[in-house]
């Protein structure tokens, strides 16, 4: 049972337009959410995060929105650039046993920004 779901395996967007990547989760204990970007043959790299006490966090061209009631978050990239073409992973965190925290990842969305 996947607790973090990215239902769109791929997304294509024209350069300069907005990219919207979506993520849904089922575990109400998740209280911190992150987005990672992954280029081919590289490991994922941290992009942006949001705490469950907020509904929006912005960092330059990247904004993450959190809708707790819908258990949904989205990543907006505007304007999109060809260098943004990568796989984007949504991840969620909750306190597990004791004080340990573990990240649960979605399956990723391949974003292609067309020049």
């Amino acid at each position, binding site marked *: 049972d*996947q607790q973090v779901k990215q239902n769109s395996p791929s997304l294509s967007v024209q350069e300069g337009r907005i990219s919207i990547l979506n993520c849904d989760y089922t575990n109400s204990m998740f*209280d*911190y959410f*992150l987005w*990672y970007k992954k280029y081919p*043959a*590289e*490991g*994922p*790299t*941290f992009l942006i*995060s949001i*705490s469950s006490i907020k509904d929006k966090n912005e960092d330059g061209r990247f904004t993450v929105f959190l809708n707790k009631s819908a258990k949904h978050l989205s990543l907006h990239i505007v304007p999109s650039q060809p260098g943004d073409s990568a*796989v984007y*992973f949504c*991840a969620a*965190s909750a306190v*597990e*046993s*004791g*004080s*340990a*925290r*573990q*990240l*649960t*990842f*979605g*399956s*990723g969305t391949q974003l292609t920004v067309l020049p």
Partner: protein
Amino acid sequence: DTAVSQTPKYLVTQMGNDKSIKCEQNLGHDTMYWYKQDSKKFLKIMFSYNNKELIINETVPNRFSPKSPDKAHLNLHINSLELGDSAVYFCASSSHQAINEKLFFGSGTQLSVL
């Protein structure tokens, strides 16, 4: 200078063999992890480890074992490899296990079991 490095990048081996993947981080982090990216592309936690606590995902077969000679290294040993072990394995580290932890990943090891 690579922050989290893992070797080898590619590993092709026969079923039944024992193999190891090495991981080193030079970030001074306290916690290291192993993740497996399965055929459906999900990244799933296998282990998290700091100098005090090893947390094992209960779904991980005991053929997999992490070994940490020191805080900067967490190697993954796999005994009696099976076809289903074929996947990409990522090592990662973080400074601590606080709410705002960011993981720094290695570039992955593509394991193919024939």
